[in-house]
């Protein structure tokens, strides 16, 4: 896949919502970087794809989900959302089940995404 854009920062998200704060804090970092004018891409690997599933809700005590943050990505010009195709298929999730539009990646394209960005933060 050669249409992965060059970027300043690649944020890798490998955890789902609610169970821990990696996803929230990773998305925070992405949004702040974009607000600072960096060209930011997101790469969802493994359990990270759970972040993108439709119909998520609040957790206990009104614990915030991450869907509102995902909806803000467009406003921050974060448009490159790369998703590990195998992680979706392992979980029986189709692209239509996702709440945002994404580009599927697999194989060498994943390493390519890392190589194409100057800086990487892995959450």
């Amino acid at each position, binding site marked *: 896949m050669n249409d992965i854009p060059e970027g300043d920062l690649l944020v*890798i998200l490998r955890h789902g919502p609610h169970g821990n704060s990696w996803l929230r804090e990773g998305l925070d970092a992405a949004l702040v970087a974009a607000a600072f004018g960096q060209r930011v891409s997101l790469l969802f690997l*493994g359990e990270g794809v759970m972040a993108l599933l439709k119909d998520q809700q609040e957790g206990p005590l009104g614990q915030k989900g991450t869907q509102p943050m995902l909806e803000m990505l467009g406003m921050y010009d974060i448009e490159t959302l790369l998703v590990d195709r195998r992680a979706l298929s392992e979980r029986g999730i189709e692209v239509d089940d996702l709440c945002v539009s994404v580009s599927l990646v697999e194989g060498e394209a*994943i*390493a390519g995404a890392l190589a194409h960005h100057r800086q*990487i933060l*892995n959450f």
Partner: protein
Amino acid sequence: MILHILNRSPSASRVFQQTLDAMGPEDRLLLIEDAVQGALPQLVRYFEPVIGRLFALREDLASRGLDGRCDSRVMVVDVDGFVTLTEEADKTVSWF
């Protein structure tokens, strides 16, 4: 060239697979903390695709009683060597 740093044992966590998937053909992998178990001859098979580019941190091996038990194909470096690996790489990515 990217230096990937992994701190989870391949017998306890599947994050090693994500790490390998994300590695380019020239990238290197350094095992630290609990990941140094992956340098044992019995577990090194998980890292077969990156043999020759696979390093393990001596101090973390020694503190776990594993120094001298490594597979000979794993390059053992001390923390000084860890710094050298970061100097030689364009950037680093930590997997946990």
